[in-house]
């Protein structure tokens, strides 16, 4: 993404060299790679941590106070003491902006005005698109929709911190990442309406976008299967020696799947450059996190698997941006996975098939919508920087609304995909059974012209 190139890299690296301890202090290799990224990138890329462990084992071989175990050295203790089930203090949450949009420190990656303004514009566009598409579903114009209300900062800020070469394995609440990458509103609308302009050929439910051009893998409805895929793709990038990572998004509910655990473990073992981004929004459809798991969220599981982890305020665009930015550097330069847990709130329903007021208090939803709106918080910061005015606010809101409405109107009028598209892409080349099916379908259409209008797209 061109705009990303405008970021002031020197300023962020100097900023982070002072405080890298706070971000990577508990890691295995805690030195300040920020200062000399290029050199370290080359040397670390394929370096395995195995050797460190083995070397340590050798040194400790003669020490009677330790157990020289194949996985590393363990100290003996006379204490009969179990690990506590819960830490005395919960893991802290990294934040940059307070509720009123004021930075609480300058401990964050600096952002250019152009990038910041685009981030805000995209957040507003995203919010507007969600609102109007949701209404379109309610009017019966599309069958299904998923909004990301309340999670705009996670979407846009994480996307902004990545580069276009990085591959995105989304769940289904990350359309904003695609929006940031340049997927047009018309393309979103075409997908939701399943017309022939949809680059998925009308095969997927609404909101299941995918675009090769934007390195955004087609959304899978299955929960959390994208996590191992992202690890596998990251391994592929590593094998190719590419200067890129993968990122995968998933919810708090997805962390209960076997795939999450398998992927986290594999990512650590394979030393794959992947960012595992958990949107902990409190609710998996109607299941609150307290019924989902009893750990201190997701962030603590990273350490259990040997993966660096951080918890961030998901409604703080600058915190998300900084965390993803640094995670990306670590993932690529050290060829390792990084887990990010963003605390946020699903301010909308799970999907259009859900009514969340049935299982959670309206006040709770309203409080998050009003007091914790990530878009408003980021706007206050922009205004404080002098980069945004009331006038520009009116203009962008109006502009976004017009664009989205226009996209829907156009998408509705575009033809549906041709019948032949039922049979394409099942395989690279259709085998005889598919060719036979298509042939017999065409014969049926020919035999019953009264049932198929002349403009029926074959």
């Amino acid at each position, binding site marked *: 993404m061109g705009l990303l190139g405008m970021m002031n890299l020197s300023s962020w690296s100097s900023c982070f060299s002072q405080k890298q301890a706070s971000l990577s202090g508990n890691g295995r290799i805690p030195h300040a790679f920020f200062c000399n990224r290029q050199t370290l990138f080359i040397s670390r890329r394929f370096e395995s941590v195995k050797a460190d462990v083995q070397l340590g084992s050798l040194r400790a071989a003669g020490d009677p106070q330790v157990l020289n175990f194949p996985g590393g050295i363990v100290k003996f203790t006379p204490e009969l003491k179990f690990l506590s089930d819960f830490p005395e203090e919960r893991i802290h949450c990294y934040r940059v902006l307070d509720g009123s949009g004021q930075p609480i420190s300058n401990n964050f990656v600096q952002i250019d005005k152009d990038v910041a303004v685009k981030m805000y514009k995209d957040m507003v566009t995203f919010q507007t698109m969600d609102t109007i598409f949701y209404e379109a579903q309610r009017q019966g114009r599309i069958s299904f929709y998923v909004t990301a209300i309340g999670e705009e900062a996670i979407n846009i800020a994480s996307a902004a911190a990545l580069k276009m070469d990085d591959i995105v394995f989304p769940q289904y609440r990350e359309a904003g990442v695609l929006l940031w990458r340049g997927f047009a509103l018309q393309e979103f609308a075409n997908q939701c309406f399943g017309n022939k302009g949809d680059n998925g050929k009308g*095969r997927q439910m609404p909101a299941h976008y995918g*675009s090769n051009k934007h390195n955004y893998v*087609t959304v899978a409805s299955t929960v959390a299967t994208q996590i191992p*895929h992202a690890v*596998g793709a990251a*391994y592929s990038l590593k*094998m190719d020696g590419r200067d890129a990572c993968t990122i995968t998004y998933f919810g708090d509910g997805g962390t209960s799947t076997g795939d999450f655990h*398998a992927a986290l473990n594999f990512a650590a073992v394979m030393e794959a450059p992947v960012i595992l981004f958990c949107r902990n929004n409190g609710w998996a459809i109607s299941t609150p996190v307290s019924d989902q798991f009893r750990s201190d969220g997701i962030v603590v599981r990273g350490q259990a698997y040997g993966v660096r982890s951080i918890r961030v305020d998901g409604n703080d665009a600058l915190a998300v941006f900084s965390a993803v930015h640094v995670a990306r550097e670590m993932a690529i330069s050290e060829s390792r996975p990084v887990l990010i847990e963003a605390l946020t709130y699903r301010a909308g329903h799970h999907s259009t098939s859900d009514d969340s007021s049935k299982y959670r208090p309206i006040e709770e939803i309203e409080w998050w919508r009003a007091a914790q709106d990530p878009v408003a918080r980021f706007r206050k910061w922009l205004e404080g920087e002098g980069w945004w005015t009331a006038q520009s606010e009116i203009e962008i809101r109006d502009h976004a609304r017009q664009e989205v409405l226009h996209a829907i109107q156009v998408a509705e009028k575009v033809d549906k995909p041709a019948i032949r598209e039922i049979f394409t892409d*099942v395989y690279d080349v259709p085998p005889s059974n598919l060719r036979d099916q298509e042939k017999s379908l065409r014969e049926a259409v020919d035999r019953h012209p009264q049932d198929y209008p002349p403009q029926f797209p074959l």
Partner: protein
Amino acid sequence: MGCSGSRLDEDGMGMPPKSRPVFLHELKMRRHMTRPSHKDAISTPSKKELLLYDKDDDGSSTYKNAPQTARFSPKGGGEGEGTNKHEDDRKHKDVRNVDVRGKGGRNGHKVNKSEISSAGDAEEDEDYDERMIGRAPGSPSFRVYFNDGGEDIHNDIGKHDDFKSGGAVSSEVSFTDYYRILVEFIRVSVVAARQGFAVKEDVRNYKAKGGMQRQSCFGKLESLERGIRATALRAFSSSGKEMTVRDALNSALDEEMSADPKVFLMGEEVGEYQGAYKITRGLLKKYGPERVRDTPITEAGFTGIGVGAAYYGLKPVIEFMTFNFSMQAIDHIINSASKSNYMSAGQISVPIVFRGPNGAAAGVGAQHSQCFAAWYGSCPGLKVLVPYSSEDARGLLKAAIRDPDPVVFLENELLYGESFPVSAEALDSSFCLPIGKAKIEREGNDVTITAFSKMVGYALKAAEILAKEGITAEVINLRSIRPLDTSTINASVRKTNRLVTVEEGVPQHAVGAEICTTVVEESFDYLDAPVERIAGADVPMPYAANLERMALPQVDDIVRAAKRACYREKFE
């Protein structure tokens, strides 16, 4: 090599005893000794050069002193002498090893010397190389192998010596003068051509550049050798050579990995342990841990990771220790691998192979004895292949790896150690079988028997028994469950007018059911008898040997069904 059990003996072979004639195939059997053997076999002026190859810088010949005992043994064991001398020998073996591998040049693969030398266990590699070219004494014909890289000619004349019994000369040598002349001609041409520059160059290159430049020094010979190889292959395409299914799979993996750096293996125990069934033997050493990945024990994990790797550039071959364990990962096979190309409208193809043993083994009970052909056969987007013979295994696995779609490759544990004759074409690295085409294993006019995997062997045995009773059965080896070659099946049924389907899996919604349907739909009027389905009992697999046998189709079941179809036995 006839069967895997013969390795020790073969490896134990030393120099050919001088007291008896040296048979050509023996020379090859000694792998890395091929070169010196040329001089024994035919005395050409290359003798000096060839000897030079095996000498140290100080001129001492290590070749003849190389210990030849206890080669194929678990790591670290079996190599008694830890002396410097032994180390030297190893080093030299390594060099020769590279040489033999160069004949992997048949697949266009070059291994650099450092890669091999750093590997610990030269002996296993030798064995491995041995198997790679599948040279088993089998029949009175012979084959000539050449390298694209071009340094070795391997001649093989089968069935006049028994290797399995330790190299004793036994049976008759029955090749004709014609063969003899041609062999001599080819060998003399190439050896003489080499004498001029190639061997010297080879040695020099090894000494000077660590063997890295060897391909180029032989470039000039390539076209000559290719021509001769083509001639030889044409002349002796029915090689009569035998190869185990295990070796066929191993060689197919090796060749595809060497041909395409995107191909990598992943699974439990595929690396250090060389595969639970040793299908991946030698590959870790050859391709390294980045391309032969041992994984944590999570099928859902490595299958999902394989699918993700296939999304972005790699061509993973995922090994399930057995296909029973693929149940842990079936979500990724079906929801992810088989549908992604379609859901993304062709934007994301998934060139992945899931392979491993499928179906009943022996005495491993309900959770290790299921046939998944029908399961995966019912998933659009997947291709499902079921090899029977070594030729199937090689040709279909190579096709599967090259295919842009996800392929489920169902092997059979009990077939791994079985040897089959392989044609010369099947041994060529370019060999590939078409996906979706069945093979008529045996022609006949009275009844059609369809089978796949291990059951093909049963069907062939049944056909033999039937033949004695005057019934000629046509046996169709399906090879591919999806796509299913319905046209071959229907053409056969239209000829024989009778059909018996055989499979190990349970009958309901099974492969036989689908075959029955296609025949009813397309060839109903040709049927002279009800279709017979032979399948496993409709129960989970019992463990006790007698019960297990009862639960699986047996040759007699097929014979009886075929007779019923031919109205030669009463319907029960």
